[in-house]
């Protein structure tokens, strides 16, 4: 039997559907397996249908899986909503007291969840533990792995409520016994022992918080919004511990402008929001670009337009992120592909913001914010943090000291904050003893920051500001090609779909197709050389995106005249590897 299974739990939120799934994923991971989760959220605050899916494998998991191998239904509605996603010949687990499924192409295990909880354990709210016990008995992981997690998770409430803890353990036990004794195993899914590995288990937003802390973020201001709120909440808790300050602002405009205030003070600052809040930040993002202030803006994309579907996934803010605000405003746009990127790329985002003195927009998305992955612990290592170069001190004028000769402004009485340089990067400074003051402004200005409307000045300043993007493109890492060197079909993607695309590439290659993929994480400035080479190395380029208009495809068209085959999904749910595979087969 292969050591992999994808289990989906469907139920009512509040019933423990999600918490049960969380425990299962964590238990499997701690037992030594790779995990990758996908979940939906109910429309109501309390109650409402939801589901939790976890793919458990002894190999690295890169997508949520095409289908569920095992579907556990905690009520009838869960069956109706999810049965179509159960693979042919998969396993259905349900409680006969809820409903009886009309037979289909699946193996069924009827289990009296409700009775076991109500009658045997005599505490109905242990139903999700009953479910976990049954899962353990039928597919693994072993009960110990699960009890460990439950104990650690409930350790706090245990003190307050020791009986509950006992009952939970009892429920796990009873259910596990029930299935091993009463249900002859008729399916092929059985997780065997694997050796332990040093991994951490967390979701995208948690990794973003870790990244911000690693990057020495010293100020966060935000305004609550789904699915970005827990970044704010994480930093509200952690920043004071490391000497950073936090502000819940009155709105997103106050959040981003206060971030610019902190940045002017030399503090590495960020905000995190989603579409509606990001839209409100437009004007300030343009200001940051003009005044050349570092700032990191996380946009946890959700399904739009407008208020849209706050709890659904979409990759539809790229075009807006590339052109946010009026005028020609250089900015850096990055998009993490997975939980590891949420950490690593976040630190890089702060470094880029500081080095290139411009806003960096970090395009996460709803599926990634909630996706729990097991990641090698080594990924979360210390990363070099590029401090801002202060060289605006008396005598120390000119950009030389940050390695870029200032073409003008040496020996001046005023500080040439916006000196023209070959790299476009000008010397900078912050308020502190001995610093030479300057005034940041959104007006066009001369090298000293003084307002200036002369055509020559505006032209030169526009070129200087955009020169920083050229410098960045040279200095920043190129994306690595994945797949066949002699591929005829190329796939270019962005954001949280990388793993899914790579899995599809592998499956296509196994079927004999010649395929390769490129997945730029920096979307502004684009890694021109790498992309040009890739495009020219293949016959057809497929650009799969979870949006309507093909936003990356548009960018590639604008930049390289590429006429790609656009594969767009826009129902609020991520691609499966199978869907990408089908697209590959179709163009072949």
């Amino acid at each position, binding site marked *: 039997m292969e050591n992999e299974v994808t289990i989906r739990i469907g139920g009512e939120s509040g019933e423990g559907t999600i918490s049960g799934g969380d425990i299962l994923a964590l238990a499997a991971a701690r037992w030594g397996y790779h995990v990758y989760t996908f979940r939906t959220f109910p429309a109501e605050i309390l109650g409402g249908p939801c589901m939790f899916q976890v793919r458990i494998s002894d190999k690295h998991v890169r997508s949520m899986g095409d289908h569920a191998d095992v579907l556990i239904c905690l009520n009838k509605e869960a069956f109706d909503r999810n049965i179509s996603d159960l693979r042919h010949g998969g396993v259905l687990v349900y409680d006969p007291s809820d409903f009886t499924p009309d037979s289909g192409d699946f193996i069924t295990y009827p289990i009296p969840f409700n009775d076991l909880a109500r009658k045997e354990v005599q505490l109905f709210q242990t139903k999700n533990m009953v479910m976990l016990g049954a899962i353990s008995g039928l597919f693994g992981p072993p009960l110990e792995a699960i009890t460990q997690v439950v104990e650690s998770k409930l350790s706090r409430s245990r003190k307050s409520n020791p009986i509950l803890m006992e009952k939970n353990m009892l429920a796990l036990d009873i259910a596990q016994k029930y299935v091993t004794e009463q249900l002859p195993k008729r399916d092929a899914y059985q997780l065997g022992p694997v050796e332990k590995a040093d991994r*951490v288990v967390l979701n995208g937003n948690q990794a973003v918080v870790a990244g911000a*802390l690693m990057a020495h973020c010293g100020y966060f201001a935000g305004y609550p919004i789904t699915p970005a709120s827990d970044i704010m909440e994480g930093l509200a808790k952690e920043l004071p511990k490391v000497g950073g300050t936090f502000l819940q602002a009155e709105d997103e405009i106050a959040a981003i402008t206060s971030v610019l205030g902190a940045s002017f003070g030399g503090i590495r600052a960020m905000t995190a929001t989603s579409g509606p809040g990001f839209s409100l930040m437009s004007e300030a993002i343009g200001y940051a670009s003009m005044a050349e202030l570092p700032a990191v803006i996380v946009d946890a994309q959700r399904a739009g337009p407008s208020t849209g579907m706050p709890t659904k996934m979409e990759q539809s803010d790229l075009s807006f992120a590339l052109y946010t605000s009026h005028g020609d405003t250089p900015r850096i746009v990055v998009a993490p592909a997975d939980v590891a990127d949420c950490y690593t790329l976040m630190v890089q985002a702060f470094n880029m913001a500081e080095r290139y003195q411009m806003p960096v927009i970090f395009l996460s998305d709803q599926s990634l914010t909630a996706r729990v992955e097991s990641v090698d612990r080594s990924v979360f290592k210390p990363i070099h943090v590029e401090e801002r170069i202060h060289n605006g001190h008396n005598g120390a004028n000119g950009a030389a000291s940050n390695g870029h000769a200032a073409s003008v402004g040496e020996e001046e009485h005023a500080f040439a904050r916006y000196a023209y340089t070959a790299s476009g990067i000008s010397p900078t400074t912050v*308020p502190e003893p001995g610093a030479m003051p300057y005034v940041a402004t959104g007006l066009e200005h001369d090298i000293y920051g003084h307002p200036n409307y002369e055509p020559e000045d505006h032209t030169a300043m526009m070129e200087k500001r955009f020169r920083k993007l050229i410098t960045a493109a040279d200095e920043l890492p190129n994306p690595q090609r994945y797949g066949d060197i002699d591929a005829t079909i190329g796939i270019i993607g962005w954001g949280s779909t990388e793993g899914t695309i790579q899995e599809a590439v592998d499956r296509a290659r196994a079927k004999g197709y010649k395929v390769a993929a490129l997945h730029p994480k920096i979307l502004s400035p684009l890694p021109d050389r790498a992309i040009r080479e890739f495009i020219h190395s293949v016959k057809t380029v497929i650009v799969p995106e979870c949006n309507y208009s093909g936003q990356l495809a548009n960018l590639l068209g604008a930049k390289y005249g590429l006429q790609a085959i656009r594969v767009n999904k826009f129902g609020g749910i991520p691609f499966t590897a199978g869907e990408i595979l089908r697209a590959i087969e179709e163009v072949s």
Partner: protein
Amino acid sequence: MSQTLILTPKDYKSEVKPTWCPGCGDFGVLNALYNSLAVMKLAPDQTVVVSGIGCSSRFPHFVQTFGFHSLHGRALPVAQGLKMSRPDLTVVAVGGDGDMFSIGAGHLIHAALRNIDITVVVMDNETYGLTKGQTSPTSPTGHKTKSTPYGLLASQFNPIATALSLNVSYVARGFSSKPKELATLIEQGIQHKGFSFIHVLSPCPTFYNTMDAWKTTVSTMPVDHDTHNRFKAMELSMETQKPYIGLFYQEERQTMDETTHQLMQQSSSFDINKYMAQYA
């Protein structure tokens, strides 16, 4: 430039010459600020003047300290973010009635509730100067302008009354033609620990010349006014026909910046390995 130097008002004059019209009230406010800064010997390299957009918001360019000429209406959030993260700096926010009371009105409310230790100086000319004379929230009802050819139909905003209702911890009014008194109010405001709100009558001779009117109507605060009596202060603030100048109200209470930094007393540097243990 360092704190030990003796600084005179003109040391705070920048090389950029004001673009204001002759007779603009903002000149008086600028000079008042030069004086306050000099008297307090504030280090130019550790002082930041933040503004929004407007004639009055050009201010930072004319002051030889750090400056942040931000966006229309956003001086207060910028100043708060700066002060929260850099409590060692002196932060003064300046702007106009449009900037602070129209597009920026929401931020004023929340700055009041947070009581972060910044000082805001609002140059109120009861009009939008930079955009050539449309009505502002402080324009009088009936005021005829290009945007209100048939007369303004809204009530006139009373900044002092609302500031008091929000329990702003330092509330004062000055007049650009009384720069000495104004300088003192600014000094006290900067010294005050908390959010200091200074409403300055600063006429726009070009688009709405209230200079002569104010010269006659402006009256000095009753000597016996108890500046800890918020109710009394409200009563005085209702007197719009002869606006009082001076200190209306002052109260010392916790500031968000200070309390936040107290929280951080036992903060340590970040250790990613320790931090990740929770996810192992």
